[in-house]
């Protein structure tokens, strides 16, 4: 078997290190080795967006990254959104209030995408919002309430 490579990075403010096969995806490493299972795998070919995390503040599909590529980076997963005292992140709170999740499987990926969008200075135009979240697939909500949640967050920021 291929020799393993040491990696160390920061996840949600905590230092993480491990020894991985070069082929191991970042998503599998986060889920199976670090135990952060909030990052979900919906397609493992970079389309559905369920595995979206932040790498140095920017969205990335953790199914398309290898664990070794994360060496030295700062990662944020869905587990890093909530405050230590259990207060939900404004994006989480808006999703709940607008019933923007049903089965919840795609939700972590949407949340991470929207967190980045809000950082970038979001549009309040519905068409723009739909375009911006179109890289994440959801089969339950029809996106209607997700759009409402994002629109409200964007308007609050405008």
């Amino acid at each position, binding site marked *: 078997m291929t020799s393993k490579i040491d990696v160390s990075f920061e996840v949600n403010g905590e230092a993480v290190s491990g020894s991985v*096969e070069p082929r191991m995806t970042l998503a599998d490493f986060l889920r199976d080795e670090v135990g952060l299972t*909030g990052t979900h795998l919906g397609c493992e070919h970079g389309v559905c967006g369920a595995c979206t995390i932040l790498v140095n503040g920017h969205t990335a599909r953790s199914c398309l990254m290898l664990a070794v590529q994360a060496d030295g980076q700062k990662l944020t997963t869905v587990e890093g959104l909530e405050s230590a005292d259990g207060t939900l992140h404004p994006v989480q709170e808006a999703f709940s209030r607008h019933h923007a999740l049903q089965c*919840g499987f795609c939700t972590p990926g949407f949340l991470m995408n929207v967190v980045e969008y809000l950082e970038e200075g979001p549009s309040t135009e519905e068409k723009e919002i*739909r375009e911006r979240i*179109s890289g994440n697939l959801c*089969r339950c909500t*029809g*996106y*209607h309430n997700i759009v409402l949640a994002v629109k409200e967050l964007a308007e609050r920021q405008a």
Partner: protein
Amino acid sequence: MTYVGQRIARKEDNHLLTGRGQYVADIRLPRMVEAAILRSPIAHGEIVHLDTTKARALDGVVAIITAEDLAGKVGPITRPFYKTIPDHVARETNLVVRPYRAQLLAEQKVFRVGEPVAVAIARNRYVAEDALELIEVEYEPLEALTDPQSALREGAPQLHPDVPGNIHCSFHTGAGDIEGAFGDAEHALSAQFTVGRSIGSPMETRGVLAEFDRATNQIVMWATQQKPHLLRSYLSEMLGMPEEHIRIISPDMGGSFGGGIYNEEIFIPFLARQLGRPIRWIEDRRENLGNARHTRDQYHDVDVAFNADGTIIGLKDRFLVDAGAYNPFVITLSYNTAAHLRNEFKIDNFDVEGICVLTNKRDNTPVRGAGRTSATFVIDRIVDMVAGFLKLDPAEVRRKNLIPGELMPYDMGMLYRDGGRIVYDSGDFPSQFDKALALADYAGFRQRQDQARAEGRFVGIGISSHVEGSGFGPHEGATVRIDQSGHVIVHSGSNPHGQSHETVLSQVAADALGISPDHITVRAGDTALIPHGGGTFASRSAVTAGSAVHGAATKVRQKILAIASELLEVSQQDLTIEDGRVTVKGAPGTSLSFAEIAEVASPGPGSRLPEGMEPGLEETDYYVPPTVTYSSGTHVAIVEVDPEVGTVSVLEYFVVDDCGQILNPTVVDGQQHGGVAHGIGNALLEEVVYDESGQHLNPSFMDYLIPTASDVPPVTVEHESHLSPLNPLGIKGAGEGAAVSPPAAIANAIIDALRPLEVEITQMPMTPARVWRAIETARSNGG
């Protein structure tokens, strides 16, 4: 305060938003190994050589399993996925059903691309997949049947020895006098329709984790399963174990829009027992798109008889279902199509024949809409064709044929699959229709359409309406208990995969008991909770689980009142329950809390129960529906077509639905939004494509397109609530209906947009290529 009908916040959200959900793939057990499955690369053939030696030798491999290892120990699956069809249904529908036999792993032959051939079990999924590459298999290809027409032709190979002519099942039924209707009618027309194959495609792929405990001889298994109790009964039978020794847990599920029992759910627990190690198998997306069961895929040949004023007096349909390799749901899907073909229309003379034909493709089984999407596409296109033939506005012809509100409940003159007569129990279709058209501003749209046409834009409006036999039996169960702290626990036999059971069932229990939902915990998705359960399918949970929770909670309430009446020495009529306290009317100081009553009701010497009463505040209720209840809806789509490239944009979408008593409007709205998006996918994007050799050509999200946020418009939803007389709360199912109408509404809207060209559409999905071709055909015909 009444909780049913309120927009109370979901109990499910917090753990799902914070990454604390527990889906099957999130669960790891000590000593767990992982499985990967070698699947057939061809559609039909004999296995002439199979060698697993190299794979077995790979470091990290625990076992390589083929059919030989299972022979005589487990499998095949021979019981179809439903209870027996009642005799009178079989008789009246001229039902013919051939045996069902599905091999767990390919024995000698493979019958479809993707059929499991071998299982690799290894240290982790990576190594298991490495092992698959080392398994040597040679196939001798046989002729593949890839559509029902070729499977029916003279001289076609017969796929299974006990299915002559490849017809797995068929039925022929109807109502009224079909020949008389066609004899009397002023006009008749014929049309053929093709409904493409699609797949439910939940965001979570399927998964199984099974553990066998040698100490207690028990299997515990986590599975993405809509029907955990049904799976337990299959395992009990096939593994030869008492049901009590098998516990199925359906944890958080990332959607699931159809299903049944899968081979992996049988052989993985079998192997976990055999090998004495927990085994996890998580499907990848390629496997999911090819191997989670498919749906729709029908070919209809329709005749309609009508008069010059647009009144439809007779409908004939003979349809073929491309049932795939095994057809485990037998007539479920096809009979649903037949039962819903007339939808909201009063067509008293009806003749329908459904034929399920086996081919070398994946099974064709119920997925959200379950046969109704196909039925609705057919009938709504037919009604608009009648309007087109008579040069009448489609809305006028549709409204003329709706069953008038004053005729409800209306007997459609034939049987439902469960043995009940098809009697629409409640609703007012013309009122629903008028409301939908007003919501969409149908009259005003015609003006906007003229203006758009003047600008060279092709916009159109289309209507579709449907009914849905919802709340299918045979039963659903619930247990309601009040613990010593006064907290309420509800155990449901129906488990959710996104439908908000925790929230809505707590609302039902709260009203029946007289306590806030905040003091209620709902648990589901575990066969250890309750002996019998149905599950979530057939838009049934609000109806059946809702009624069972209502029944059990009502029994607990009666017990609470009986105990309080004794303790407080007043008659039960003089007691009220509010906020978890029983109070004497007019004497607010005299009351008992649920906790105090629970203490009195506990077993033991301190118990002060009325004589003869069993200890404990716990009751179970099994709700057995008399037959299904009929929810309904009318949809209006507004689309724009680009005639140069054939693309269709859905600009606006309107829904008026009737699901009787709404448990939580926010949840129902969400179901409508999601259903419409699913239906838009079916209408415009989604098609599982096989080539003529039976190769599955689009097993990825790059090629099989499910709608993104940019593909669906905002959806405006309004409700009518005509209560069902069939269950105590008047509930009708809301989960699937919204997925039923979009293809029909959108097809009609496309035709309306292209009215000047006189385009005809008879096939879904309406991909850009097909729309473009329809336009070209119309143009070359001089349209």
